[in-house]
């Protein structure tokens, strides 16, 4: 009997045997020191997604980091692929023209 009582006590102390009303597991709003953060905010705070300051952008502003480093080459290649492949470009990258042949 004593052993059973000890077991019950251990369960209660460990939290397994505690009954809680629905909703009561949420901490009181007053326990927050600030507004809860959204998952997006938490993700953006991650080390890998450091906010890069304007003076840290020397590498990002390199010409070879641009989406299209050479605009003329980009336009020419875009027009060639538009003329020779079935994919219809979703922008003006293909340039005008028939591309029939």
């Amino acid at each position, binding site marked *: 009997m004593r052993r059973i009582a000890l077991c019950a006590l251990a369960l209660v102390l460990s939290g397994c045997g505690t009954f809680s009303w629905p909703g009561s597991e949420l901490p009181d709003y007053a326990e927050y020191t600030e507004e809860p953060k959204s998952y997006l905010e938490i993700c953006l705070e991650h080390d890998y*997604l*450091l906010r890069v300051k304007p003076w840290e952008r020397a590498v990002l502003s390199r010409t070879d980091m641009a*989406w299209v480093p050479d605009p003329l080459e980009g336009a020419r290649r875009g027009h060639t692929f538009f003329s020779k492949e079935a994919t219809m470009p979703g922008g003006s990258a293909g340039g005008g*023209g028939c591309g029939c042949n």
Partner: protein
Amino acid sequence: MQLGRRLRRGKESAALRALQASALALSGMAQVASADSPIDRVYTSYSFSYYDEDEIEDSKGLPNADRERYSVSTHQAMIAAPLTDRLDFSLEVTHETMSGASPWYTAPDAAGAPIQVLSGPTIEDERNDFLLTTNYYYDNARMGVTTGYSSENDYDAINLSFDGETHFNEKNTTLSGGIGMSYDQIEPTDPELDATRPESEKKQTYFLNVGLAQILNRRSVVQSSVSYAFGTGYLSDPYKKVFRFGGTFFPDERPGDRHAISWLTRYRRHIEEFEATLHLSYQYYIDTWEVSSHTIEVAWYQSYGDNLQITPNVRYYTQNEADMYVGYLPITANGSGEFSSDYRLSTYGALGLGLKGEYTFRTGWFTDIEWTAKLSYERYLSSGDLAFSTPSVEAPGLVSFDVFSVGFNAKF
């Protein structure tokens, strides 16, 4: 966090670098999530390219017929300059001369396999294209308007588009979008020569895209964008026709509407240890003609000191055939419905291999000018064997070509 501490320790030197870096960030053609002010230098560029298609293979063409295909010489010139502290513009002019032969129709050989019949090396055409872009910059955004006009002997197109971008998250995230339209008119040459050739037709194309770019850290950035395009009107090719077994022909007949969605993701990473920049991109495309395609591109911009840069690139493309693609029609076909034997609508894959060299130097002739001389070569190979899915019949007209290009840029 370690990086943050290191930066705080080196705050003074970082501050010293700030002026240099922000000047770079605001300069010229760097379109990386920092375009909140007009370009600060005049940028000019010229390029000449020669595009040359391989001759058609003996086994895929008519016996004793000319094997020569198409070639294009392209001159391109561009100027971009600031107008005010809120405004800049760029003008791009292209002049092309095209000549040679083009795939006309496919007909079965003795064994029933389609062979490509070419038009004969009689095509002589020119294309002139003008593209004018103006950008207006707000404190945290950019708005652009582009107008264009393209003219060939048999084809005219005018286009207009608006695009813009805005930055948030301390300018680490950029939302961009664009909308555009093109009105095209075709008046095929010599319509009297072929009953399948129309006299005059029109088409319109509209597109809409939206993209999100995120700076990941000081060396890498990623962008993902979705585009919708809609084509309506005459979307067929007037210079192609479809062979019916027995020797009669029908015009190339494609649906009058085409809706397409493409999803493009691009990644740029600079690797300081190697003095190199990696470009990766992937595009998935699907449309209502049941064409779907994948495009994967990798480029490695390798710098050697401050002057020389060598860039190898690989591009892989694969597509599934459009639902109206046929090699040729059976004798029972009555001509109703849509069909095309254009090899570009067939199932195939293509591999592009390119190499580009750039040499940058400065002169102080009348002002400080930064010159870049460019030389590049690209080889494009297409084949049914390179496709993800096996084609029922490989189109005999699949094209392989070389492109040689030479040019220069100058920044004043």
